[in-house]
């Protein structure tokens, strides 16, 4: 059967992709950020996942205000990088895993999570920046990806509790897939940041640290945080952090925190990053 061995939480700041694509990763501003991902790059090279379930949000690239799915699962064979207004990133196309994705879609819907099924989608920085951060600059991505897009732009996003519960259902879906697959799940977005209004630039390191602590030790507690707390404490765009709870829900109740990294700033954002391994499954 397929199994989820680990989860990774990471920010997906677009400027990180731009810095990497323009060859600026060695500049003093960016160097600490890329250095902070080196241990995870080494870890994932050893872990060699067959598939990554990548929880992210589309930033008005494939979905617009015309159609706003709360949870959408990509079932396509391939996803091209999106043009977000400055041309598409020069990164490889993302290879999907239609068999696993369709199995997950069916399992999740029968498990009462009403997923939107997507067969055609361009993927923006929300998906490709995390891949760049953990795999670096490559000719082709070393594993297949099941994209899971969450609406966090149009209020209200799904609640943290709903996201956490979806993560648990994702685990059931993966573990009922008969092929032997090592699956790693990524939750992306955050940490604290606000891009808009006169409060733009808000950063809350105490909140971020507590969130990372809670992710490892008290996910049930985190899942009870209401939206107003995210917006007030972590900024209007900090509400993206609910997506990390999908990743966390797919893991064991008790996990090992293998690595953590935190850095301010990347552009307007606190870069957060954590690697959590299931105890039973750790190689």
């Amino acid at each position: 059967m397929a199994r989820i061995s680990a989860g990774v939480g990471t920010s997906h700041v677009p400027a990180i992709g731009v810095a990497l694509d323009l060859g600026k990763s060695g500049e003093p501003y960016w160097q600490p950020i890329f250095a902070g991902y080196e241990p995870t790059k080494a870890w994932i090279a050893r872990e060699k996942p067959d598939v990554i379930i990548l929880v992210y949000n589309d930033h008005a690239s494939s979905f617009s205000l015309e159609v706003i799915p709360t949870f959408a699962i990509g079932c396509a064979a391939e996803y091209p990088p999106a043009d977000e207004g400055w041309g598409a990133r020069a990164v490889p196309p993302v290879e999907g895993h239609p068999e696993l994705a369709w199995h997950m879609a069916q399992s999740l819907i029968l498990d009462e999570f009403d997923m939107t099924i997507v067969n055609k989608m361009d993927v923006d920085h929300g998906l490709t920046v995390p891949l760049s951060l953990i795999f670096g600059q490559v000719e082709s991505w070393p594993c297949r990806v099941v994209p899971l897009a969450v609406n966090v732009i149009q209020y209200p996003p799904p609640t943290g509790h709903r996201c956490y519960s979806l993560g648990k259902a994702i685990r059931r879906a993966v573990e009922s897939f008969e092929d032997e697959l090592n699956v790693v799940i990524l939750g992306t977005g955050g940490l604290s940041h606000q891009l808009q209004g006169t409060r733009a630039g808000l950063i809350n390191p105490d909140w971020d640290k507590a969130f990372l602590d809670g992710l490892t030790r008290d996910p049930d507690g985190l899942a009870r945080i209401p939206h107003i707390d995210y917006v007030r404490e972590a900024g209007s765009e900090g509400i993206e952090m609910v997506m990390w709870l999908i990743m966390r829900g797919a893991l064991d109740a008790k996990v090992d925190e293998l690595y953590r990294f935190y850095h301010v700033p990347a552009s307007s954002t606190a870069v957060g990053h954590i690697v959590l391994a299931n105890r039973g499954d750790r190689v």
Partner: protein
Amino acid sequence: MTESSFEDIPGTTLFDGRMSRIGYHLNMFCMSLIKVENRAAFKANEASYLDRFLLTADQRRAVLERRWNDMLDMGGNVYYLAKLAATDGLPVVHLSAGMANLSPEDYARMMIGGGRRIDGNRSKRG
């Protein structure tokens, strides 16, 4: 959780159903700029390109004058407005600086210094 409690958060516009309704055409204009041919058409003649969209007169003026906070107040969402900034060759951070009423340099300095502090920025009541 009520709408009014969100309104207590200073300097923050919640992109809820009301704002989405007000800003629908403004945001869909911005969305159109993800296509390279539309960016070219907009840059060639901004006013005539805007005729394709059902913007209000105020939204239209705010776009032409790049008044970011006014666009925000009229239903613009930052991720959509970012497409307009990108068409101008500007990153999202430029947009954020403008909304914060800071020069890009001052905004970048604030961020390098750890960002805007949360203390004093939680509530309009102080």
